[in-house]
C-alpha cells in the first residue's frame, strides 16, 4: 500500500507540476471555443480581383457579364466560374499543366496519375481567348499573377467521433491516427509563427463533411490539408498517395471517394453549385502543386525508412471536402492501416511524429516555392516595366 513519498526532492515536485500542467492543457483543449476571425485574408484577394479586372478588363469583357456571379460569396474565384478550364473538346478534364511549374523533377511523377506528356498543345489552339491563355499559362500561375499570400491553413483530421474511419486488424482507428498526426502538424506549423493554423476538429468529435467545408470557408482558409489513412482489401499493400479534386482515373479511386464522401449532407442543388468551382483554375493549380509537394516529401522520406512502401502518387478524385473548400485543398492518405506492419508503426508516437514532420516539410516546400514564383513574377514585371 503506498503511503506517499517525500515531495521535497526537486525531481518529484517537478514531476507533479508536469502532471498538473498536462491536465490543465487537456482541460483547455476540451473547452477551447472555435475562434472566428475578425480579419479576412481573402479581402486581399478582392483587391487583387479589382486590380486584375482593370488589367485584364478587355478580356473579361469578352467573356461577358456572366463571369461575375455570386462574387459576394467567393470573391475572386467566382469571377472565374464561367470560364471552364478545358473548353476544347477532346482535352482531359484535369488541368494537369499546373504540374509543369512544380519544384520537382519528372522523376517524382512516375507514379502520378497523369495522361502523360502532350496533353496540352504547344501551340495556342484556335478560339482561345486572352482569358483562356491567362488560365493556361504554365509560366505564370494565377497565384503569382495576383501576388496572393497564404495566411490561414486549415488542417482536417479525417473522420472522428462516431465515425472511426478505417480500422486495422488490431483495432487501430483511422480517426485517432489522423487526429494525432494533425495535432502534431499543427504544432509544427505554428512554430514558424507565420500562419494562422486551424483544425476542423481537435478532439474525437463527429464532424460531417459539409461542416468541415463550412469551417474552412468561414475561416477563409488559404490552404486546406485533410489527413486520412488508407485501407485496402489486400493487407500486404502499403502505400502513400495524395489527392486533389478532379475526375477519378480508376475504379479504386471512385470507390475510395464513395467511402470518404459518405454522409456529406449536401443536396443535389448544393452539389451543382459546387461543381462550378471546378473551374477555379487557381485553386486547381495550387492544389496540384501542394499535393505534389506533400506526396514528394511523404513518400521520399518514408521510403527511406520502409523500402517496401509504394508510391501511388498524386491523384485526382471527387472528394467532397476537396470540392467544397474554396482554398487549394489536398487529401493525404499517409499510410495504410490495413497493413499490420504499418498499423503497428502507426501506434508508435515516433512514427506519427515523423509523418507529421514530413507533411510539414511538404507544406513548407510548397509555400517556399510559391513565394519564389511570386517573387520571380514580380521581378520579371519590374524588369519589363523598367
Amino acid at each position, binding site marked *: 500500500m503506498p503511503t506517499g513519498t517525500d*515531495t521535497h526532492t526537486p*525531481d*518529484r515536485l517537478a514531476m507533479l507540476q*508536469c*502532471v498538473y500542467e498536462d491536465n490543465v492543457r487537456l*482541460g483547455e*483543449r476540451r473547452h477551447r471555443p472555435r475562434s472566428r476571425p475578425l480579419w479576412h485574408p481573402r479581402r486581399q484577394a478582392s483587391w487583387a480581383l479589382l486590380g486584375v479586372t482593370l488589367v485584364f478588363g478587355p478580356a473579361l469583357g469578352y467573356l461577358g457579364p456572366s463571369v461575375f456571379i455570386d462574387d459576394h460569396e467567393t470573391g475572386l474565384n467566382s469571377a472565374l466560374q464561367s470560364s471552364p478550364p478545358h473548353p476544347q473538346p477532346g482535352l482531359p478534364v484535369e488541368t494537369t499543366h499546373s504540374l509543369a511549374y512544380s519544384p520537382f523533377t519528372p522523376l517524382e511523377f512516375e507514379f502520378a496519375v497523369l495522361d502523360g506528356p502532350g496533353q496540352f498543345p504547344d501551340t495556342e489552339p484556335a478560339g482561345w481567348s486572352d482569358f483562356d491563355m491567362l488560365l493556361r499559362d504554365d509560366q505564370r500561375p494565377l497565384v503569382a499573377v495576383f501576388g496572393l499570400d497564404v495566411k490561414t491553413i486549415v488542417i482536417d483530421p479525417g473522420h472522428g467521433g462516431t465515425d472511426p474511419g478505417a480500422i486495422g486488424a488490431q483495432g487501430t482507428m483511422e480517426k485517432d491516427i489522423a*487526429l494525432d498526426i494533425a495535432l502534431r502538424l499543427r504544432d509544427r506549423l505554428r512554430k514558424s509563427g507565420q500562419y494562422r493554423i486551424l483544425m476542423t476538429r481537435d478532439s*474525437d468529435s463527429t464532424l460531417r463533411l459539409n461542416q468541415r467545408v463550412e469551417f474552412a470557408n468561414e475561416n477563409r482558409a488559404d490552404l486546406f490539408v485533410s489527413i486520412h489513412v488508407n485501407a485496402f482489401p489486400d493487407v500486404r499493400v502499403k502505400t502513400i498517395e495524395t489527392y486533389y479534386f478532379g475526375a477519378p482515373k480508376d475504379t479504386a479511386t471512385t470507390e475510395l471517394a464513395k467511402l470518404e464522401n459518405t454522409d456529406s449532407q449536401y443536396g443535389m442543388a448544393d452539389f451543382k453549385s459546387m461543381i462550378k468551382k471546378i473551374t477555379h483554375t487557381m485553386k486547381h493549380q495550387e492544389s496540384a502543386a501542394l499535393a505534389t509537394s506533400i506526396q514528394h516529401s511523404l513518400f521520399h522520406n518514408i521510403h527511406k525508412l520502409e523500402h517496401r512502401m509504394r508510391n501511388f502518387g498524386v491523384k485526382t478524385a471527387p472528394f467532397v471536402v476537396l470540392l467544397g473548400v474554396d482554398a487549394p485543398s489536398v487529401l493525404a492518405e499517409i499510410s495504410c492501416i490495413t497493413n499490420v506492419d504499418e498499423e503497428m508503426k502507426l501506434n508508435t*508516437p515516433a512514427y506519427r511524429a515523423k509523418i507529421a514532420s514530413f507533411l510539414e516539410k511538404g507544406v513548407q516546400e510548397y509555400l517556399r516555392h510559391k513565394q519564389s514564383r511570386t517573387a520571380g513574377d514580380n521581378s520579371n514585371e519590374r524588369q519589363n516595366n523598367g
Partner: protein
Amino acid sequence: MNGKTTDDSTLKIGIDLGTSRSAIASSDEHREWVESYVGWPKDFIAQKVLGKPVLLGEQALSNRLSLDICRPLERGVIKEGTTRDEEAVKELIRHLVDLVEKKEDRKVHAVVGVPAVSFTANKLAIKRAVSDYVDSLMVTSEPFAVAYGQNLLNNAMIIDIGAGTVDFCIMHGTIPSEDDQRTVLTAGDYIDQQLFNALSERYPNADFNINMVRRFKEEHSFVGTSKGKVEVDFPVNGKMTPHDITEEMRGACESIVQPIVETTLELVSRFDPEYQDQIMSNIVLSGGGSQIRGLADRLQQSLRENGTCHMRCVDDTLFAGADGALALARDMPEEFWETV
C-alpha cells in the same frame, strides 16, 4: 502534504483502468478491483430475472447470455468514443468509487492511469467518464504511475504488460515525454487470439470460445520449458473432453517475446548511450502479463544477448498501477487540485 491526506474531508484515490481488470486504491487504505466488464439486461425479462439495471465484473461475465455485455477499455482506452462505451466506463468508475468511498460528504480527488501513449481524445473521454464521480481529477500515463509508486524515477524502465497493450516507459529523473514511451498491441488479448487460432486449427471439432481460452491462459500460461502437460477440458459434440494444449499455449505466449525485446532495444537505443547500461540493468515488469511463467527470465535472456540486463517483476501486479496513481494523488499539492 508529504504523502499524507491533508484532512478527513478529502479522499484521495488512484485508479488503474485496465482492459481486463480495473483497480482502485484509496487513502483510507482500501483496495478493490473488478473485471472490466459491464452488461445491461437485454430486455425487460432479463432485467427482472437479474434484478439490476446494470451488472459489472464477474457477475456480468457469468450472466453474459442475458446481457448486452461490453468490455469498454479494449486496448486500454475507451474503444470508439461512443456513448455506450463511455457509459460503461462511467459504470465501472461509479462501482469502483462506491467500493472505497462510504462517506458521501467528502471530496474525492483522483488520479487515473491511462496507457502510455493514449491519444488525447481518449484521455478526454476517460476524463469525461470519471469526472461525474470525483471532485477533481488528473490523468497520467499508467507506466509512469507504476514507476512513481515503485520509486523508480531515475534510469529505469517499466514494461507494463496488460491485456490490451504493452506499455514501455523510460524514467530518467523527469516526467517521461512521448519519446520515452512506447505502446504495442501484442499483449494479453493478442495471446488469447493466437491461442484461439491455434486451438481451432488443431481441434476443429471442439467447442470453445475466446472467454474460455482467456481462462486457460490465465491458469496455464508459460514460455520456455513446461512443468508438465497443459491439459484442459472443453466439449466435443457436447461431451467434455480433455485436450493437450501445451504446444499451443507455449507458441501463443512466446509470440509476444520478440515484439517486447525489439521495442525495448529500440527505445533504449534512442537514449543517451552513457546511461543505456543503467537502464538495461533496471527493468521492471508490471501488469497481468508479467505473471506468465518464465517470461521475465526469457526476456532477460534475450536482452542479455545485446549486453547487460537485469529484469524483475513488481510484487503486486494487480494493484501496482492503482497504488502508483494513489501515491501521485497523495503527493499532489492541494493548490493543483483546486485549479485543475
